């Protein structure tokens, strides 16, 4: 009942991601990109961690998406196994065409463009932002959240700007989506509420059956109480300042994954 954290050449968030899985009681391994498929067959879940796999050559995530290991993970995703892509992992899932799955005839339905504000490119951003979750019950990863939650999370990317092939399908979809909002939950397109120019303020999204989640922000950096900055104008920061915060908000996501794997396999 183990989870595989896939290490590509250039991944760099694999250890804290592994730690997050371990802390909630999931056993997990870091599994290199060039591992044999047989070595992967026992795993019940797959995480593609953050980083700069293959140096972002051509475009972030492209080279990794063409590896045999992604073919294997695609099969597993279709079989209903949990697959989570964070940051570079999100870019890889986009490039591999695993997400979105609104229209099976489209081989690649979205891409992650360079960060923009209303007018221009503005480069890499490391910052704390807020997200809301649309239809949290629709995914095994987000079912412990409410759709009214406004959750702080860190972003760290230069290319996190979601662009969709068919906007209408995204808009009418009922699958789970993570949406950038401000600290009180209002969704506006303007910077810095939308930190990178993503269409629909998209921060992450799930497939229709809810077992695959691709997200640009880093949930493994919101696991513990000490991850939440003291300075945010948010209840969690206020709890931290009072010394009563016990966990980070994103621990629930890993707990939900744990429970799903235990319930299912």
């Amino acid at each position, binding site marked *: 009942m183990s989870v595989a954290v896939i290490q590509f050449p250039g991944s*760099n968030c694999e250890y804290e991601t592994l730690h997050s899985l371990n802390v909630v009681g999931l056993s997990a391994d870091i599994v290199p990109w060039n591992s044999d498929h047989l070595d992967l067959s026992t795993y019940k879940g797959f995480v593609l961690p953050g980083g700069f796999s293959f140096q972002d050559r051509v475009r972030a995530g492209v080279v990794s998406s063409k590896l045999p290991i992604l073919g294997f993970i695609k099969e597993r995703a279709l079989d209903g196994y949990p697959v989570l892509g964070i940051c570079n992992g999100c870019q890889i899932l986009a490039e591999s065409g695993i997400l979105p799955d609104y229209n099976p005839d489209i081989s690649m339905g979205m891409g992650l463009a360079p960060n923009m504000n209303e007018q221009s490119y503005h480069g890499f951003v490391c910052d704390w932002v807020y997200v809301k979750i649309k239809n949290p019950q629709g995914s095994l990863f987000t079912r412990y959240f409410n759709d009214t939650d406004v959750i702080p999370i860190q972003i760290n990317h230069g290319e996190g700007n979601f662009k969709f092939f068919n906007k209408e399908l995204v808009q009418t979809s009922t699958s789970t989506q993570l949406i950038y909002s401000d600290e009180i939950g209002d969704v506006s397109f303007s910077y810095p509420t939308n930190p990178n120019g993503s269409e629909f303020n998209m921060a992450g999204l799930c497939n229709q059956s809810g077992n695959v989640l691709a997200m640009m922000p880093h949930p493994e950096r919101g696991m513990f109480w000490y991850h939440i900055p003291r300075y945010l104008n948010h209840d969690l920061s206020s709890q931290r300042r009072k010394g009563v915060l016990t966990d980070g908000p994103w621990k629930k996501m890993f707990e939900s994954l744990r429970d799903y794997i235990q319930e299912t396999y």
Partner: protein
Amino acid sequence: MALSDNDLKQIKEILKRDPSPVEYYIFDAMWSEHCSYKSSKPILKRLPTKAESVALGIGEDSGIVRFHNHDGESYCIAISHESHNHPSQILPIEGAATGVGGCVRDVYCMGADVIGVLNSLHFGVKNGSDNFFVEEIEEKVIQGIADYGNPLGVPVLGGETLYHSSYNDNCLVNVAALGLIKEKNIIHSYVPKQAESEPYKIILFGKPTDSTGFGGASFSSDTLDEDNKETNVGAVQVHDPFLKRVFVEAIKACLTYLEEESIEIGFKDLGAGGIACATSELAVSGGFGVALDLDKVLISDPRLKPEVIACSETQERFAMAVPATHTQAILDIFNKQFQIPDLHPQAGASCIGVVTKEKTYKINYQSNIVCDLDVATITTQVHADRYSQPRIIEKEATINAELNKNILLEDICNTYLNSKLNASKRYVYRFFDNAVKGNTVIYPGEADAVVIKPIPDSKTGLAVSMDSNLYGNTDPYTAGAYAVSESIRNIISVGATPLALTDCLNYGNPEKPTVFFDFEQGVDGIRDAANQLSFHKSDPIPIISGNVSFYNESKQGNAVVPSPVICAVGKIDDIAMAKTSQVFNENVTLVRIGKRYEEFAQTQLEPYLSEYSNVAPQVRFDQEKKQNKLVLDLYKDNLLESCHDISMGGLWVSVVEMILGERGKPFVGLELDLSKSTHILAELFSENGGYVIATYNIDAVKQRCEQQQIDNDVIGNTISNKQLRVKTATETMQWDLDDMSRQWNQFNP
């Protein structure tokens, strides 16, 4: 090329023949200021480097200090502190990136995992169209650091950005890298004794050797010359953080293998002087010799000359001395397990030579001996006689400071808010990943120091800070002493106790006696502060690592402001205790700790004064130490809500930052009552070391200050109105915090 006629003459005398081209470049690198410290060595001996807590002192690639015992293991922090000033001026992206790259390699090769970097950036000031590239250099240096640290997966844990016109032709880019290592796993930068009883080989791994950075060491040891721009550009190395990230993982696998097999190795990174410097130092410091076969080196271009292969400074390379019986296993980790040759053409690991008991340094290339030196020759201590020319430095202010006519206090306050020196630096640090590895507890910009939790399952925190100042032209001693005292205040300010210091000393041409005097004074200031600000009964706060960068000058030959940069690390027993600068609640009382003096030379107030003594802000060690102790005691008794040190910009900038916070989003307003202050200029703008603390229990704080005879004053209270009101004896000034926030955030996106 930096070897002087005199050097060449000396080399011929030692060798009793002409040096071969390879030998020539080996001497060129090894005898350069950069590698030999020929000007600075006698002065650097003054620094206090020894203490009980030091696990590995100066002399190897990083210094190491003991940090915390946990689960029966002694966890240590390894630090390397380097400059990359000249390369960053010439090619800012590559220069700054390789500055980070070189510094982290020094830490990795001790066997440590790099847990963070800090950078001190000193940029010029744009002055019309005269120096249009000042801004471009700033932008690209920042990009270079981000381009390296982000892919490598190492968080930037703060630092500083300063602006001064003396950096217009010579920016400063200083980097410190910090690593975590268990004491029992420290690997040394020399061939182990074991090599006496079994054969050892030299493995080189990394990017394929090319011609980049050829002559880099001697280039950094000379003044930048516009006419040589093309050759200078070739001397800057090219970075590849992606490949480095893969090598870091492969190194981890190697070290695990070596630990399991209980094998001792020697491990060194390749920096200045390339293969020649690294392999000779690896062997020589262990008491051995080396025989290299240059044909075995993985190269990018078959046309490279032997002296280029031997001495270029291609990035992302390491050398390891390994028992012959295990070389194949190590090569396989790089070349097969991690498939490095498939990721980058010609990259990987190869065995390039053997360790010899005969103390010679020999290099073979295409069946010819291209270098044959006695080890003793290479290690010949070179030193240069330098002279310092003292000048009189005023230490005591005797004149009452007077403002220029027609200048209002309020205008000065506003000008401070609009200065890039004081404004929010989020426009710099938003490019840097500050939380990869998941250890960050206090983030850059929210407190005087950044705090991380580096040991899993331990609540012990590591506080880090990097600081310098602009006082050096008036008082070079104070520049050193103040840099130490400020970095220590920053550590104290989050509730940590200082553990160790590192220094990077940036000066002009040491052959000029006035410059050399500044350098000597800076070292003395650092020495005295490190000795006198320590809480330990007999030990100083040890200086465990450092670097000297000379020849930082303008085109006209004027040196940069003497710029000693200090990195301090400290320990906090429980990360839950750490506080930040911002005040979040109403009815909190603000107290100023530490006496103010009218010492305004080189401060931000100086341009507004018609009369003042030419005295820079002095560091009074006894007072500072008492204040530091007080703050830690207040932490212990839970009497603090927030804490911020007073340094550049004085109390005014400190309180503004306490109200605005990292985001520039105030939670409360503030009413400052300074009406009893008889020296309002000193009260608001003096840059003497001190603190502003926020407390709910003013009586207890007052009592402690009085018991310990520490100068203090209640300066105000937080209020619900989002305003900042300042009452002086003669006037009341008032700011709307929304306006103030806009000013403070004006350089941010």
